């Protein structure tokens, strides 16, 4: 469990994190979203005890950062941004080193390392120097060092950044598989990831929380929530008829793909209406879909809104 209360971090004049409060519970995967430079990494660095907060407090599993920083660090597994590690070391030596630093009993180190190597699929690079590894393997080594002591809390800073789709999938599977008995915070700016792994998403902009919802709730905020899209040759006059429907807010036509998108007024379900309308007018449709909502659009709206507010101040 992670509790942050009124957490702030100032770098001389610059406010990186501004009065952040949130709680993440056991069994929860919390996603930190936000544009680059929003304060995601800085927040994570404070939770993991790397940076001293300017004000506010952090508690991990009931241990206060100020009272017992070492006890707090022992509870956390942390993958810093870019998964740094010692390039000149071999994978096995590096993992053993981390295990020693984590004060794992020396009789258990070998079994622990073997266990992790199996779990993260590192056996083929076990004796390789880290500098010779591909990006995907380096990231896996980073993950391996973060979970070697089976921590209660995992903090992962952009765990899938720069990986190919298969590797991303593997990492997400791994995160989901660990989520049951851990508290996990991941930061990302890849929105599909939120769907794939997070139970809850916090959007941060300019060091402040601008949204704290489940991914589905975030999608509901989208203009595209329940919007219906179909592909068909359609007469433009019909588009105007769509606009006249009371439940329709807007209609958009994409000439290139012959795609029409009908936006409902606030959250109304219009799929039936649209399909009835199309049947009535005997329009043959090659595709008809309803959207859940677009996170990227919500993300842009929320974070840019905040920018505008900042300027207005």
């Amino acid at each position, binding site marked *: 469990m992670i509790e942050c209360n009124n957490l702030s971090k100032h*770098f001389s004049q610059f406010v990186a994190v501004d009065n952040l409060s949130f709680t993440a519970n056991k069994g929860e995967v919390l996603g930190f979203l936000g544009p680059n430079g929003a304060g995601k990494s800085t927040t994570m*660095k404070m939770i993991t*005890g*790397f940076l001293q907060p300017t004000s506010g407090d952090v508690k991990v599993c009931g241990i206060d950062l100020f009272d017992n920083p070492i006890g707090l*660090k022992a509870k956390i597994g942390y993958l810093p941004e870019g998964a740094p590690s010692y390039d*000149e070391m071999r994978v096995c*030596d590096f993992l053993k080193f981390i295990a*020693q*630093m984590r004060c794992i009993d020396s009789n258990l180190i070998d079994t622990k390392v073997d266990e992790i190597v199996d779990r993260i699929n590192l056996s083929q690079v076990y004796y390789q120097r880290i500098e010779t590894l591909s990006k995907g393997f380096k990231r896996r080594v980073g993950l391996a060092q973060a979970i070697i002591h089976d921590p209660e809390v995992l903090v992962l800073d952009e765990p899938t950044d720069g990986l190919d789709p298969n590797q991303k999938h593997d990492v997400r599977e791994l995160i989901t598989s660990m989520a049951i008995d851990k508290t996990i915070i991941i930061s990302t700016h890849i929105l599909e990831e939120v769907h794939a792994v997070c139970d809850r998403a916090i959007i941060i902009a300019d060091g402040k929380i601008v949204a704290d919802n489940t991914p589905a709730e975030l999608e509901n905020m989208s203009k595209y929530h329940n919007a219906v899209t179909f592909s068909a040759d359609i007469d433009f006059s019909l588009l105007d008829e769509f606009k006249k429907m009371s439940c329709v807010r807007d209609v958009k036509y994409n000439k290139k793909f012959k795609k029409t998108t009908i936006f409902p007024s606030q959250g109304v379900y219009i799929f039936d209406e649209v399909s009835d309308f199309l049947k009535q007018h005997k329009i043959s449709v090659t595709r008809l879909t309803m959207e859940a909502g677009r996170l990227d659009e919500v993300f842009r709206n929320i974070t840019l809104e905040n920018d505008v507010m900042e300027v207005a101040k």
Partner: protein
Amino acid sequence: MSPKLAVIKRELQGYFSTPIAYVFIVIFLILSGVFAFYLGGLYERGQADLSPFFNFHPWLYLFLVPAVSMRMWSEERRSGNIELLMTLPVKQSDLVLGKFLAAWVFVTIALTFTFPIWISVNYLGNPDNGLILASYIGSLLLAGSFLAIGSCISVASKNQVIAFIITAVICFIFLLAGLPMVLDFFNSWLPQVLVDSIASTSFLTHYASINKGVLDLGDIVYFAMVIAVWLYATSVVLDMKKAD
């Protein structure tokens, strides 16, 4: 294994897994031999002692020790590893001390490889082996002081070249503090007490007195304090700079 030991072991492996260790040891051995025999006239003097050998150590260390210390922290900061290291449940003092001790052990290993010169003088004559032991200890203390300075500068700069140059300059100042050319500069505008205290901070004076075979507690305490102060400074600068 305690975390401090783990750090020492890893750092030492780090030295020997890159060419740094071998280059350092080879250059150190060649130069210390060249200096002792050609500049110091170890052989021509016809005396069975190693003072020509030890007299050149400060100058050798002046550019070799900063080469060892420069990557101690700056590399960690540049690669981002510092974040990994400092979020492990380990006391900061263990990290600072562990890294320093590893570098010191490394220099000790290099110094141990000079044993043939000790065997040679014993073969050629009857040197005062107590004096030689004292000189080895003095040499190690001097190297330790340079390393402690280097550790602090290495934490302050992400750039290894800058760390190297600044460490060398600071070590140079500390070496020369007791020489007339430095003291004359201060004599004109500082009170005598301060000039004396500057003179007493000279590494060279303390090193020379150990080299005479007088293993005075004062000299050892002096070097121990220099090391302690600079390592403490390392810790302070680390807190200030780790986030940059």
